[in-house]
Each structure stands twice: as C-alpha cells, then as structure tokens.
C-alpha cells in the first residue's frame, strides 16, 4: 500500500496495521527517513518537499508492485510526506513483512533505494543564505543499480 500525505504518520500504528495479526509473518523490516539538521555542512532550519501529484502515486505503486513480485511479502507499505518539514520530522516510511527476514530486509532496502531515484520529489532546503534545491546524489543511483538484474 502507498500513501502520499502532508501530515505526519504514527510509526507504531502503521507497523501494527501492517502486521495486523497475520501469523504467517516471520519478520518485519521498516525504514524511516527523517530530516537531518546538517546536510552538506549548512545548518538547515527547514525544508520543503515538492512533488508531482499523480505521477508520485503512480511511481510508488509501480515500485511497490515490483517489490511484491520479486519477494515473498505478506504486506508492504510506503508513506511519503510532502510540504514543509523541520529537522527531526519524519519524511518517509517504508515497511515490509515477510515469512523470512532476508526477504523483508531486501524488499525494504529495495523500496527505499528505488524510491530515492524514481519517485518525483524534490527537496528545497532553507539555509542561512536562503533556499537551495538539493542535488541528486550519484550514490543513490549506485544504490539503485544493485537491484537491477
């Protein structure tokens, strides 16, 4: 399941809904991305996440489907926020439940790596000297490339 939303999410509640008393689940892996105070040396007061409504949902749904085709999952979840976020705020939650821990780890890792290079979000950081658009990082492409086969 995927969700794109302005408001924060309740991690405990979301993970509890994901496992949902399913006794086939052996392991559940989650990743939460948070706004860091320091990115590339500047002190960040806040950031604004812009996205492409419509395409975002489409891309996240495709990524989620791909993960469910590649791994044996009982359930999966992607929640991505947009709008203005401050240091310490949640940005994204990715979680996968599987009968086996390796599948849960790999699928969760895959989802965040792919999301980072495919989901149409852009970060505008507010710094002391104004705002600047975060540049895409080569290491994210490298991270995604691992999952190509």
């Amino acid at each position, binding site marked *: 399941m995927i969700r794109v939303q302005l408001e924060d999410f309740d991690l405990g509640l979301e993970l509890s809904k994901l496992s949902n008393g399913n006794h086939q689940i052996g392991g559940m892996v989650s990743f939460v*991305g948070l706004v860091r105070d320091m990115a590339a040396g500047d002190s960040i007061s806040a950031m604004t*996440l*812009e*996205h*492409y409504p*419509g*395409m975002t949902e*489409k*891309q996240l749904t495709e990524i989620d489907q791909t993960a469910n085709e590649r791994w044996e999952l009982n359930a999966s979840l992607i929640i*991505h926020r947009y709008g203005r976020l401050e240091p310490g705020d949640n*940005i*994204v939650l990715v979680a996968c439940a599987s009968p086996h821990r390796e599948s849960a780890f790999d699928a969760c890792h895959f989802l*965040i790596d792919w*999301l*980072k*290079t*495919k*989901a*149409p*979000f*852009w*970060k*505008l950081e507010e710094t002391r000297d104004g705002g600047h*658009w*975060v*540049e*895409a990082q080569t290491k*994210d492409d490298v991270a995604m490339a691992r999952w190509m086969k």
Partner: protein
Amino acid sequence: MKLLYFAWIRVKMGTSNESVDPPSTVENVQNLIDWIVRRNSVSSETFSDLTTIRVAVNQEYVGLDHPIKPGDEVAFFPPVTGG
C-alpha cells in the same frame, strides 16, 4: 498539450504549468524542447543543459525520442531527491 515544470525548472520558468499547442511537426520530446526554447530566452536558458533535466510523458519517465501527441501531459523536472 499540458506542460508541467517542477523544482528549479518551475522557478526558472516562472510557472508550474502551461497549455501549449505546438505545430504537427513537433513529434517527439526533443522536437518539443527545441520548439519551447525558441520561444524566449528564459526557456532557452532553462533548457540549456538537458543532462540536468528529466522528462515524463503522461506520468511515465521517457527518453528524448519518445513520441508526443495533442492531449499529452509532459513534465520537466530535475533528478529526484525524495526519500
């Protein structure tokens, strides 16, 4: 045809979207960009380095040779930085 701009492309273009009606000789994304940049200096500056720009047609990533047609939604944006 609807054009969408995001992030610094939106800022540089001074708008998030516009409706255009390019001539029928504009058959693919490359043709469309060539047609856009001929309109004014803001457009030509924005699209001066295509390596920094990604394109989606009808919300799917495409290459410059992807065909376009009236009614398409064509979006231009920098490499994504979410997550």
